[in-house]
């Protein structure tokens, strides 16, 4: 079994609301292994984004510990990039595509930076769009620029916050396949957050199911489906359907319990 890249132990996070506070994360522990594709699913508003931002180190946590290769981290994780759902807000509108991708490479030797940017754009199939501005691209292409930026930065860990939730279905399919290709090729670890159960199973090695707020992990499911995964063939496997039913049950049941 591969070594843990990220270990999250008993973190808790509350937000001040007026005089009181709202508990967003009750108690979450998880481990992300090297080269693993781990997905967190849960009902809307269960605190998935808060969890991701807390793990990234963008939000201070109230309790618990986050470790990177066994060493406690205070602040932003090293060698990590985030791909946000809102692609139109995470790219720099005043920078052309190649300059957006180059953004993390300040201080890198110019020739090497050129090569990394070209390679990253090739990997996300955006050659020829170097001089375009983000607003001149479709949503799916903008998200590919954001992914290329992470690739160029040589991130070993990619945190993805519902990255494909705001693009149309066909674009989403091609982005999912592109992401899997990149993940296998680059040997990176991915922590993916989504509310789409099929997407979670299709992409991941493991799926964690979160409860309603205050969130905690209610189930961990090994996705023992063969790789490489395929949009059609994988989704037709009996095992895929079994897993889907299992996760739907976990998410749905909890949802109803919370409403009642």
């Amino acid at each position, binding site marked *: 079994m591969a070594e843990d890249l990220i270990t999250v132990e008993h973190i808790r996070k509350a937000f001040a609301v007026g005089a009181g506070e709202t508990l967003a994360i009750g108690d979450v522990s998880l481990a992300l292994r090297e080269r693993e594709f781990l997905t967190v699913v849960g009902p809307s508003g269960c605190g998935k984004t808060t969890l991701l931002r807390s793990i990234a180190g963008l939000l201070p946590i109230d309790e618990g510990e986050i470790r990177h290769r066994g060493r406690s981290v205070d602040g*932003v994780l090293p060698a990590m*990039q985030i791909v946000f759902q809102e692609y139109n807000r*995470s790219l720099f*509108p005043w*920078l052309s595509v190649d300059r957006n991708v180059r953004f993390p490479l300040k201080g890198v030797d110019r020739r090497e930076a050129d090569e990394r940017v070209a390679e990253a754009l090739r990997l996300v199939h955006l050659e020829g769009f170097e001089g375009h*501005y983000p607003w001149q691209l479709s949503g799916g292409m903008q998200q590919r620029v954001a992914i290329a930026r992470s690739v160029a930065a040589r991130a070993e860990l990619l945190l993805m916050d519902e990255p494909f939730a705001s693009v149309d279905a066909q674009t989403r399919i091609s982005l999912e396949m592109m992401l899997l290709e990149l993940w296998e090729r680059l040997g990176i670890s991915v922590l993916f957050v989504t509310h789409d159960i099929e997407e979670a199973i299709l992409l991941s090695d493991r799926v964690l199911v979160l409860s309603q707020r205050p969130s905690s992990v209610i189930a961990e499911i090994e996705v023992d489906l063969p790789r490489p995964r395929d949009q059609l063939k994988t989704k037709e496997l009996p095992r895929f359907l079994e897993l889907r039913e299992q996760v739907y049950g976990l998410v749905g049941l909890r949802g109803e319990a919370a409403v009642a």
Partner: protein
Amino acid sequence: MSRRLDPRTVAYVALGWLVAVALLGLWQLYATSAELLYLSPFSDSAAAMWELATGPTLTTDVLPSIGRFLAGYAIGCVVGIAVGVPIGYIRSLEPWIRPVLEFLRSLPAPAIVPIAVLLLGASSGTRIAVIAFGACWAVLLNAIDGARGVDPLLIDTGRVNRLGTAAILRRIVIPAALPQIFAGLRIALGIALIVMVFSEMIASTSGLGFQILTSQRRFLVPETYGGVLLIGLIGWAFSVLFLYVERRVLSWHVGRLGGAPRG
């Protein structure tokens, strides 16, 4: 510039110029026919302006005025950005200084010229300081609002890439706030010109404002009008230059809004 000109745009521009020429013609006709003591015809005024702009006054008055205007404007803009951006970014700072800023901003800069002359003397540096004072507020307040409005996701992207506060300000906050900062710079340009002229009318021995006031006191009517015309032309030239720079720097912004460049 290689763009083909739209005939309709050409027609609009031509019409605008036609109106301007017509107004000057009216001025000329009225002044020459009525022979008013305190209204010199456009031709005489323009000749006086030309004399002012090309004669010895070019180096004693016109250029020093423009120099003070540019120096004061530049200082005001730099101070406005350098102070406003961090204030807007570090939100917790703002409540502390907002009332002071609002008061200082509301103060018409010409009103402090006498005090500045008292405190700093009637020097060129005093006038530059007053111009800078007048220009900085519009820039400062726009920089605060612009920096405060930067999308937090862009800041997060900077933090993920382990940028320090200074790098975040330089590489993210300032460029993101630039459209709003430019709105402030544009207002400040007009204010700087006003303060320049006025500051030269108090305890002064040179400059365009001084020339206008002196001509008026000596009943040199065409020279008085000529001075005003020249200041108008200078202001117009700088605002054209400003629009050109703004359009180049903010081309990404204009394109993103999907509209034609304004102006």
